[in-house]
């Protein structure tokens, strides 16, 4: 890292967070206690139950359930699929993540309008059903280790594209994903930031979403998580299930290889 003199001086006098740790006092500790308390009960359970119900419910113009949906391990299999997504699907000829794959099933099996659902804002209409379904499917792989396939050519290409997207600086603030998630042991305000350029460990980063967010009382899938990161980066709007979001998911998911999924997790 190149630094000019004044910055070097600052770095020497103030090793990272130096002033902070000395002051790791009651306020910080009470925040940690709050976070520990959150682990006692997770409202994600409610979304899980709703998602499980939606899987078997006959819906849409075709009045069909999702029970024949192929999420990667054959029609109807929902256990263990989450930790192997995103992956390549031969029928669509695309690499898909959980949510974009569910969208395919909602369209092909139930006759719902995939384009209209993709355009629906998060937290409204069918997007609420999408989040519930994703929460339940993810929960069916809780504790399992991530093992995204990298055997298909498109999966390899998407990893490389995802890596480029991760480091893409842009917008008025020049931010990339790596601005916040490129180094170990960094924080924004008091929020710890996982280093997502490598495996951040069990239940951290990619392995924690979908998650229930206590601060706004919302259940978020990975699509919404990535969307809000991009919003805060001052980037434009990434389309729901767009190739950019999926490639990024491949990069993060492959980096998490071997880590256990904690989804659905609970967040501050």
């Amino acid at each position, binding site marked *: 890292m190149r630094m*000019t003199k004044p910055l070097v001086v600052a770095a020497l006098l103030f090793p990272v967070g130096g002033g*902070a740790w000395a002051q790791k006092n009651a306020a910080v500790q009470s925040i940690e206690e709050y976070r520990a308390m959150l682990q006692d009960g997770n409202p994600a359970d409610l979304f899980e139950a709703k998602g499980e119900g939606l899987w078997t419910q006959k819906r849409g113009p075709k009045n069909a359930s999702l029970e024949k949906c192929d999420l990667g391990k054959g029609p109807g299999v929902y256990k263990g699929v989450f930790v192997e997504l995103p992956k390549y699907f031969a029928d669509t000829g695309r690499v898909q993540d959980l949510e974009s794959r569910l969208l395919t099933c909602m369209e092909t099996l139930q006759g719902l309008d995939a384009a209209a659902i993709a355009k629906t804002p998060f937290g409204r209409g069918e997007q609420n059903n999408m989040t519930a379904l994703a929460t339940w499917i993810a929960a069916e792989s809780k504790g399992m280790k991530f093992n995204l396939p990298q055997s298909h050519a498109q999966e390899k290409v998407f990893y490389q594209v995802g890596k480029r*997207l991760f480091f893409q600086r842009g917008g008025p603030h*020049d931010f*990339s994903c790596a601005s916040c998630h490129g180094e170990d042991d960094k924080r924004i305000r008091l929020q710890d*930031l996982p280093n997502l350029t490598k495996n951040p460990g069990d239940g951290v980063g990619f392995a924690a979403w979908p998650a229930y967010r206590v601060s706004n009382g919302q259940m978020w899938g990975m699509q919404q998580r990535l969307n809000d990161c991009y919003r805060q980066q001052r980037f*434009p709007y990434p389309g729901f299930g767009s190739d950019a979001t999926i490639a990024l998911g491949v990069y993060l998911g492959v980096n998490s290889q071997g880590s256990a999924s904690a989804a659905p997790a609970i967040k501050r």
Partner: protein
Amino acid sequence: MKKHHKVALSILTMAALVAGCASVPGSADLDKLTNDIVKASFRDEGIVKASVLDTDETNRVCSAADVSGKPLDDETAKRIEAINLQTVKAPPGGKYLGDWKEGEKIAQSGRGLTYTDDAKTVNGGNCYNCHQIDKKEISFGTIGPSLYNYGKIRGVANPASPEAKPIVEYTWGKIWNSKAYNACSNMPRAGHMGILNAAQIADVMALLLDPKSPVNQ
């Protein structure tokens, strides 16, 4: 959508390339595919236009360096820094320092320029997201160095004095365009990119350099 089919086609072509050889396609092809995917994936929303991703050479070379895992070579870094240094505009009337109390508010605020903000939102500096500044604020980030005692440790007793001039000008330049001093700095270019105006930057300057600011106690 047509746009999507075009990208799907280029992904297929790329995948065929991968299938044909033992390794992944060349980095130039992947860069192009990434660009195509970005174009097809992001859209205008609220006040944010998709065109904000058509970025400048500074971001392009720094992103590429990050992908490769190798920092810029010295020559490129110096060239990028020179380009950015040229953009720094001195404050109107030579007024480098404003009001540290206003500066603290700007440093606290992380608002503005997201697709959920409106055009009337007053942009914040996002400073505490990454830096320790006033010691009373314990909710600070650690992506940037601590700025507590910023003026004091640099011996700034009177910011208007000739002795203080180099550090005052450097600090102004660093906030206006961080990349003038470190080509691939993580820090936004607050003045150059229009995040903060000159008066706001002067207020943040006062927070860092005014001997009366709580930062320098």
